[in-house]
């Protein structure tokens, strides 16, 4: 495979042909904030946090789905991008009921970490306080829709790593909801294999192991990557270990 050379934030780097801007940046030690991206499953470019500026292209493009090309000049950090990223995070916090103090993922939450790292000090938008319920019908796991950011990671791991196809999305817009099978209680699902990959993939406290209390939910994301690397490359190590 041919290599491409490009510039990211003024740093000249090389990347494999077919690699995404995000992969190239990560390899060169440049950190781009992400939320819907998860190592091991394909990218959908949905959260828009990894948007970057590319010279010559008027639109902002997500780093996770944009492929590198020769001579590309990428900026991952600018005043404008920082502002947009903060606004996206503010919108997320105003959208559902994210209360860190009582959350199982407090201290281990990707949304919380992003808010810190992007300098989101407060939410300027009116909170919508929607009414969402919880599904704790499953023997091992629970789902709290109040904390869901609709990143779709659980759906993707369920379909493309486990192959069970239990998780899906129903509705549209702000009423979108992660469902189990045909919108039935998780505990009644016939297709769920109880593998727990969805819980491992969740960036917030929306999916959790039953019995965990505030701040106790820590996730081992390397497991997902380990499985995919083992399957695809026949290497029994996680890629970044």
């Amino acid at each position, binding site marked *: 495979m041919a290599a491409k050379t490009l510039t990211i934030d003024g740093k000249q780097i090389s990347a494999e042909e077919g690699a995404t801007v995000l992969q190239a940046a990560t390899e060169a030690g440049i950190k781009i904030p992400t939320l819907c991206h998860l190592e091991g499953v394909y990218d959908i470019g949905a959260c828009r946090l990894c948007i970057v500026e590319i010279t010559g292209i008027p639109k902002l493009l997500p780093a996770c789905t944009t492929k590198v090309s020769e001579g590309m000049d990428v900026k991952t950090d600018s005043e404008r991008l920082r502002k947009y990223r903060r606004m996206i995070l503010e919108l997320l916090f105003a959208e559902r009921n994210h209360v860190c103090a009582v959350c199982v993922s407090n201290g281990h939450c990707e949304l919380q970490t992003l808010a810190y790292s992007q300098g989101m000090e407060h939410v300027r938008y009116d909170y919508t306080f929607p009414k969402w319920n919880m599904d704790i019908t499953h023997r091992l796991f629970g789902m709290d829709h109040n904390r869901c950011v609709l990143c779709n990671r659980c759906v993707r791991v369920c379909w493309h790593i486990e192959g069970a196809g239990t998780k899906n999305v129903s509705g549209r*817009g702000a009423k979108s909801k992660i469902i189990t099978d045909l919108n039935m209680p998780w505990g009644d699902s016939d297709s769920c294999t109880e593998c727990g990959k969805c819980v491992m993939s969740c960036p917030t406290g929306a999916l959790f192991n039953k019995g965990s209390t505030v701040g106790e939910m820590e996730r081992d994301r390397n497991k997902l990557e380990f499985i995919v690397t083992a399957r695809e490359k026949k290497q029994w190590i996680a890629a970044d270990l």
Partner: protein
Amino acid sequence: MILNDLISIKEKELAGRKKIILRCCMAAGCMSSDSKGVKEQLDKAVANAGLQNEVEVRGVGCMKLCCEGPLVAVDPQDSLYIKVTAENAPLIIGALQGGKTNIPQADPKSAFFAKQFSIVLANSGIIDPERIESYIAMDGYQALHEVLHEMPPKEVVEAMVKSGLRGRGGAGFPTGLKWGTVAKSPGAKKYVVCNADEGDPGAFMDRSVLESDPHSVLEGMAIAAYAVGADQGFIYVRAEYPLAISRLQIAIKQAKQNGLLGAGIFESPFNFNIDLRIGAGAFVCGEETALMSSVEGKRGTPRPRPPFPAESGLFGCPTLLNNVETFANVPAIYRKGAEWFAGIGTEKSKGTKVFALAGKIKNTGLIEVPMGTPLRTIVEEMGGGAPDGGTIKAVQTGGPSGGCIPSQHLDTPVDYESLGKLGSIMGSGGMIVMDQTTNMVEIARFFMEFCMDESCGKCIPCRAGTVQMHHILDKIVNRKATARDLAKLEELCDMVRNTSLCGLGQTAPNPTMSTLRFFRNEYEALLQPDPFGPHANGAAKQPEPATK
């Protein structure tokens, strides 16, 4: 089927034509006011008068002046009866025999009709959309024959480039360039898809074309498929258009029976089939990547581009995706020549555009005008201006992705570039006229609510941003917002437009931004003093620092 068969169908159809033809509109608009009953009564009255050999009552497609329906036109007398009811329909037959009738008539020489220039709607209201012979009698399918037998695919694409046709779905991408890209994309399997998921509030052009002249779309798709090397086509039509769906089904069946679709069309090696896919009511499925996802049987959500459909589209194959009106232009371009088409319209926007005229205007209906026609000609001369002595305040084009053009810009020529400069877009052709009673902030709120409801929920800026923008607009309308809210709204408009995944989110702020640009005073009049801000009493600017 060979050319002689086609010509003999045409000649037989023309020879069998009766002396007098009563054209009765059987498109959705008139049918909603019982034009079916009118046609039945006309048929009965003709039979009662014993005129079966002289008078044909023909169900036709849209006759454009939708607000005055049901419409009945009489050929060759050139009279157009309006608001016909099933009861007074027999009077029309009486009038043919010299009787008197007081059924109101429209003037076919009025500006509404006289200023129209028909390419897409040339057959609309004239042919019977449920009979292929009626289309063939108007030289239908001759362009397809000529293309298959006289032109290699490369020349077909070149002719399309020469014609200057641009996509009629809204964005105005050059059609020839798109065809050329798909033709050049490597792949054994390619698809042609027709986007008939017309969903803008107030737009009904594509529905009318499908209901009035479905074969022109099929012929256009077949020519496109030959040009790009595809053998399978799909028409993605929304379930809310049952009549268009049934007419398409009839048209596809008749085209197959006559060997105009299927294997070895016109005894050439070219095979092409068309299947229908029915949308389930999501506006976002009009976005091309969401549409293809829906055709594949998946959840209809957009995906980032590139890759563009021309490279990797339906089922990962190169796919040509055009809108109904774009395909309906195609047969005429090959029948009359690319130069002829390029001679119509302006330098950068060729041909005509169909608009659905609606809102506060006297003549509601369909119009087709050459590109570059001033907006004033359309709304004041053809549309007849605002009803009840009102004055026109603004014209909304492009639906929830477009903007409001204020009355001082009515002399703007209608073409892609001019509308873009005013912060609006050509869009698919919805044109909603507003008079002095319209509150522009409420208009902005209406379109924002539409985008909020129709957002697929995949990307955060569109899903959550439209909710917040709608919330702020709602606060402004209800006199609960301050200058700070307005500043937040403008900031959100900028952010959602620049960061959203697909066209729906990227253009959702447009109605708000364009009304803010031209009617900012209406927003500011509703603002309340900010009880907490350092810059109370509605001053949008930050105060100057006290010391320098």
